[in-house]
């Protein structure tokens, strides 16, 4: 236990002192998030664009629209409910506000005698917590003023919150879990390089002349990468939340389970590479050959459904497709590419295959 712990600490020290490793695992994913985030959110965070669906067409509903329109930083776009929701799903809008039929009549009735309040439906995306809360603040401000004008005795108009089924995410909420998947993949695949280097420098041989057991050696490597994977996850999730307001809406335990399973799967892929790469240079080359297709063809940057047929076929056999898909489902409620259980099953199977290959072909000297 002592030996396992000390070796894990030694591995972490070597990792932290390796600038290239630090860059690829901690800085590189953040560059992607910040760069793509800046390009694709393009100032959208400062203007509030709402779809305005007038189901009533009365003077009162026109008045309500005017009250919203005169607020600073609010832009209204008239739309049908279906059209507004579609636009919102594509990330063009923050919210859809629906004034129901009979709104004018209900407000007029409320001015004469208190009755049941009429509900204005407000669709927001709950994974975008801050934006969602911000939208409701605006809605409350406007409705509060209307209520005051109408009676002053009780609310005549209330908002009714509805979540837009987050079938389609804003690009940045799509990107954050994908980048996390990509980072865990890289962290695992890059395990091959120090492993081959240690073998080339005969460090593995020297270790096997001590009472240290091989499971302790492998265990410390895996433990080190798992810990770094967790740090990576925290950094990516935090940056996603602070810079781009992407909130984790799903089950944290499920996210943790995926981070662990995903890390283990790709670490074992790293061991497969280390089983066949004789030199550190060869390991460097092989990790590049493995990681770039995984990075670009597993739906990291664009949904797989939007890819050409040929690439979609490739994506279907890449393990990262399933990790990122599962992460998007669990973290931000992304549209499943495959069912969650299948994602877990594919990753588990992939881990088992890589483990078997490494157990058969990995050489210590």
């Amino acid at each position, binding site marked *: 236990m002592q030996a396992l712990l000390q070796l894990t600490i*030694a591995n972490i020290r070597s990792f932290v*002192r390796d600038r290239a490793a630090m860059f690829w695992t901690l800085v590189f994913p953040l560059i992607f998030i910040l760069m793509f985030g800046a390009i694709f959110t393009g100032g959208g965070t400062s203007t509030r664009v709402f779809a305005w669906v007038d189901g009533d067409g009365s003077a009162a509903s026109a008045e309500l629209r005017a009250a919203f329109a005169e607020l600073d930083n609010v832009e209204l776009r008239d739309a049908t409910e279906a059209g507004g929701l579609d636009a919102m799903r594509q990330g063009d809008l923050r919210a859809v506000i629906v004034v129901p039929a009979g709104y004018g009549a209900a407000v007029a009735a409320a001015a004469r005698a208190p009755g049941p309040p009429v509900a204005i439906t407000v669709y927001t995306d709950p994974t975008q917590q801050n934006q969602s809360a911000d939208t409701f603040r605006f809605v409350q401000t406007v409705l509060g003023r209307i209520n005051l004008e109408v009676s002053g005795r009780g609310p005549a108009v209330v908002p009714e919150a509805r979540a837009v089924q987050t079938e389609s995410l804003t690009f940045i909420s799509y990107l954050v879990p994908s980048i996390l998947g990509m980072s865990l993949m890289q962290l695992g695949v890059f395990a091959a390089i120090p492993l081959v280097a*240690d073998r080339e420098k005969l460090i593995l*041989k020297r270790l*096997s*002349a*001590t*009472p240290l057991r091989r499971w302790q050696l492998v265990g410390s490597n895996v433990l080190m990468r798992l810990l770094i994977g967790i740090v990576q996850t925290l950094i990516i999730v935090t940056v996603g939340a602070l810079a781009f307001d992407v909130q984790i809406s799903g089950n944290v335990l499920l996210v943790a389970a995926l981070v662990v399973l995903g890390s283990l799967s790709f670490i074992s892929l790293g061991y497969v590479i280390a089983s066949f790469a004789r030199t550190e240079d060869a390991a460097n080359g092989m990790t590049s050959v493995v990681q770039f297709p995984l990075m670009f063809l597993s739906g990291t940057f664009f949904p797989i459904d939007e890819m050409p047929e040929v690439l979609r076929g490739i994506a279907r056999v890449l393990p990262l497709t399933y990790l990122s898909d599962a992460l998007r489902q669990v973290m931000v409620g992304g549209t499943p590419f495959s069912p969650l259980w299948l994602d877990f099953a594919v990753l588990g199977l992939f881990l088992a295959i890589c483990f078997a290959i490494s157990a058969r072909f990995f050489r210590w000297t």
Partner: protein
Amino acid sequence: MTVAAPAARETGLAIRVHNLRKQYGETRAVDGISFEVRSGEVFGLLGPNGAGKTTTVEILEGLRAADSGEAMVLGIDANRNPETLKPRIGVALQTASLYPKLTVTEVLDLFRSFYGRRGHSTGELIERFDLTEKRTSQTRELSGGQRQRLVVALALVNDPELVFLDEPTTGLDPAARRSLWEVVLDLKRQGRTILLTTHYMEEAEVLCDRLAIMDHGRFLESGTVKELVGRHFQERAVRFDRIHGLADASLAAIDGVVSVAHENGEVVLYTRDVPRAIDGLLAAAGAAGTEPENLTIRRPTLEDVFLALTGRALRD
């Protein structure tokens, strides 16, 4: 051939090897060697690169399995129970094999943890191996001599009874080599058993109580340095730069010359009667219209033994 350690057949044996064999494809790396090493003895395996020294040592360290033969180390079968053996031995591999980005202190601490932290403290080892100034340096910043001292220190973290040093001074400058010899002699004074491989004759002469000369996986000869030299040479060696037009045959015909050899552009005449041999040499050279240059006379060394046994020089 069998090399039994004198007067230590029953007890006090650190290593007993019998008819050990290891083959890689067509190459017989170790080809049926047998020897014994007594407790407290420094035993040397001497031979050129590729002689099979490292393979032999790695079998005894439990790192490789032999194809056949017996390898008993500290009473443990190194082929069958390497995991029982490993806690009790200290190992310095031929190549330094250090974590490049860990400091001297960190590497020592790490290796101590593999043995449950028994034996010497990290501070003691650092002081004893003269690494105090470098204790916070990463190992990749160490000089060759410092690296080798650290490698030997790592072989001692568990305070082992038996230490394997595989070519401990290869690639070191003469000063660093001498300083490492001091370290090994110090270990010897503490009564540790050491199995050392080297391809430096001088090193074997300085450090080893007994040694075996190895080539092509076999032992050519073994014994103490004195025995080896005495067994082959009552002769002295007369050396001089090669003279054109003076054939080996005519040199061998000189009165008093026993044999003729070549080493690094020099001719070596072995003789029991130095004045007579030199007279003859001067006469032969004079007849060829020249005289020998850089003429030296010396007692034969292990170098000469090796040359006589293999017909080639050890240092290539």
